[in-house]
């Protein structure tokens, strides 16, 4: 088994700086007509400054809801209930007032969205998209904000940035628009960037450019990134650690290299074997896993993957497995399974 490039431990040893982000038993219930949907159901994780965490899982597994709840965009209100804690630099995001959270958004945390077509306001010029938050958070003058906006566009690799400021979103290609969205998220130098499927809506050739851009920006600016994707290949080679989500829970959390080399959770194994190539037609890749995710309004008892799992036994349908590290195994790695996949190459550690 290959070694990971960074310290692998999820819980940094004493003496290390506290992690940038701590998510503790986060639950997001969305109240729907059919009942309460447990879109995120007890997620815990940590993220160090400058680190990249990949979150993967089939669509509908709750990745977007998790990202938005971490950010505090989804809070307890009329349509949903959030419990658990999200500590950003030690501050509980969900304990803040609305105004306090707004202060955080666009400055300490930035978000990149899936669809650059709809993430930009069609009737606002590119310049205004950028300068609004620069002026609000940074208190910059009109001219200074414009200069900074131009600089940001240059940073994300947009040619002729001065001219782009005066253009409308529909005048730009999809890839260029996504670069603008990234520039918006970076405007005030965030410590954490949440990129929710940043390449899913883009052409295959553009996907790689955008992912490379995120990597370069991280190297230059040093922010932590949560990279969300339904596609393991997007995360491969870019995330330090990967969390695999299924039905609102993390089912496996490990160093990226270790995870790709030898998945321990049957769902991770199935995802991996279902993703042979990057240039696969979209939406065809997960068909290799039979069946569909459970109904999150009334999830089945026991392991939620059991109906689709080829290792499932009777115990799986009774007792829900917990996310644990293996005794005597890799401490940085945890999975939630009664009958984990044997590592192919047992001599890894």
């Amino acid at each position, binding site marked *: 088994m290959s070694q990971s490039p960074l310290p692998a431990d999820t819980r940094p040893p004493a003496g290390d700086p506290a992690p940038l982000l701590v998510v503790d038993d986060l639950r997001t219930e969305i109240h729907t007509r059919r009942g309460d949907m447990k879109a995120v159901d007890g997620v815990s994780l940590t993220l160090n400054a400058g680190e990249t965490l990949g979150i993967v899982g089939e669509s509908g597994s709750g990745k977007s809801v998790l990202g938005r709840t971490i950010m505090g965009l989804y809070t307890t209100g009329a349509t949903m209930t959030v419990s658990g804690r999200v500590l950003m630099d030690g501050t509980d995001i969900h304990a803040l007032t609305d105004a306090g959270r707004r202060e955080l958004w666009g400055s300490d945390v930035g978000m990149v969205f899936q669809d650059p077509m*709809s993430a930009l306001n069609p009737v606002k010029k590119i310049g205004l998209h950028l300068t609004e938050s620069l002026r609000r958070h940074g208190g910059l003058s009109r001219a200074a904000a414009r200069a900074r906006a131009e600089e940001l566009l240059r940073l994300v690799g947009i040619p002729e940035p001065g001219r782009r400021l005066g253009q409308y979103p529909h005048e730009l290609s999809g890839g260029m628009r996504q670069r603008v969205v990234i520039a918006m998220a970076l405007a005030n130098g965030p410590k954490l960037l949440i990129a929710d499927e940043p390449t899913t809506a883009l*052409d295959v050739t553009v996907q790689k450019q955008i992912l490379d851009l995120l990597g370069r920006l991280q190297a230059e600016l040093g922010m932590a990134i949560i990279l969300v994707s339904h596609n393991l290949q997007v995360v491969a080679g870019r995330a330090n650690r990967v969390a695999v989500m299924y039905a609102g829970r993390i089912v496996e959390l490990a160093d990226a290299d270790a995870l790709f080399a030898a998945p321990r959770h049957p769902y991770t194994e199935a995802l991996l074997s279902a993703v042979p190539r990057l240039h696969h037609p979209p939406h065809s890749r997960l068909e290799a896993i039979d069946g569909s995710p459970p109904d999150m309004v009334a999830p089945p008892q026991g392991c939620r993957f059991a109906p689709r799992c080829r290792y499932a036994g009777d115990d799986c349908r009774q007792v829900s497995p917990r996310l644990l590290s293996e005794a005597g195994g890799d401490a940085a790695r945890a999975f939630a399974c009664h009958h984990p996949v044997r590592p192919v190459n047992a001599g890894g550690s």
Partner: protein
Amino acid sequence: MSDIVESTGPAEGGSRPGDGADHLDHVRPRGVAGTAGRGSTGGRWGTARGPRPRHLSWSGLGLAVPGIALTAVSPTVLPAPGWVCFLAFAAGLAVAYAGVARLCRGAFGGSFDLMFWLCLVWLVVLVLAALLAPVLPLGEYRDIAKTIEAPAMAPPALFSEHPLGTNNFGLDLLARIVYGARASLLVSIGAVAIGMVVGGAIGILAGFFRRLTDTVVGVFTNSLLAVPPLILLIALGTVLEPNLRNIAIALSLLALPSMIRMARAGTLTFAQREFVLAAKAMGASRWRVMVRELLPNVLLPLASYGMVIVSVLIVAEASLSFLGLGIQPPDPSWGNMIAEGEGNAFQDHPHIVLVPGVTLFLTVFAFNLIGEKARKRWDPRQAKL
């Protein structure tokens, strides 16, 4: 994929000749439209890439000249019964239109929509005339003491002192049309503006906050719609003094429900787009999201729908005035001018009704056509993104 969506710009240009044909089908036979389209610019891309330079369309000229001649001659010179004159007039108008349309497509490119420009010119002339009425050299429109000498019920004669004729008090009809336009346009545009501001605000709030706000607004809108408009107006007309402001406020109630619905539907559509979440994620307050993100998107479809509503309200105002509940004579309004044709006046002096009637028709038609065109362009359901 992104590229396909982006290319809506040119594709839209390409669809324009078709759009034009929709409106013009009843005037211009398809065959003519087809050949003209091919002949003038080679089709799909309209002016943007038209390979054929500007040119003089001889077939257009051949249609336009006799058409205009027939139109000019038929009402006066033709020695035939009235209905023949009328048919000749209509035929002349149609032929002239077809010819001029060809000429214009030759001169300005294949996507030139003559009807649209005619409507626009009509509205611009009307608005200018209404604005400038006091300084225009118009006849007496209101004070019958000054028209004792003037001929009563004079028929229209273009180059006389009274180009559109006079009414039974000898008041000049052209002047009354222009001053009537002031009342009609002021009242209906004012009513639409009130409806747009109030309805737009209510609709955006309802669409944004949903839940209780939405329910309350829904009940309000539905109850407003449940009252037949004319009855509502007549009821209001009996309690309110019929001045311009009150009529505008009363008419704005007619515009309100549809404005609320438009704004609410647009808000629901746009609030789901990620740019609203993106704005929040950049730290924008709810107020800011509504004003800076939603309002500009909702405004365009609302304004273009407003154009269509203006035409409805012009008719509503005319109906009110016709019934004597709107603008009170001797102040002119197109509605009360038409009402002057009551009794035998219409048989003996058709121009009393025809002059305001045709003006009303043309204005409503123009607002409708331009409004529909704008609405097609800015419909939220097909907004280009």
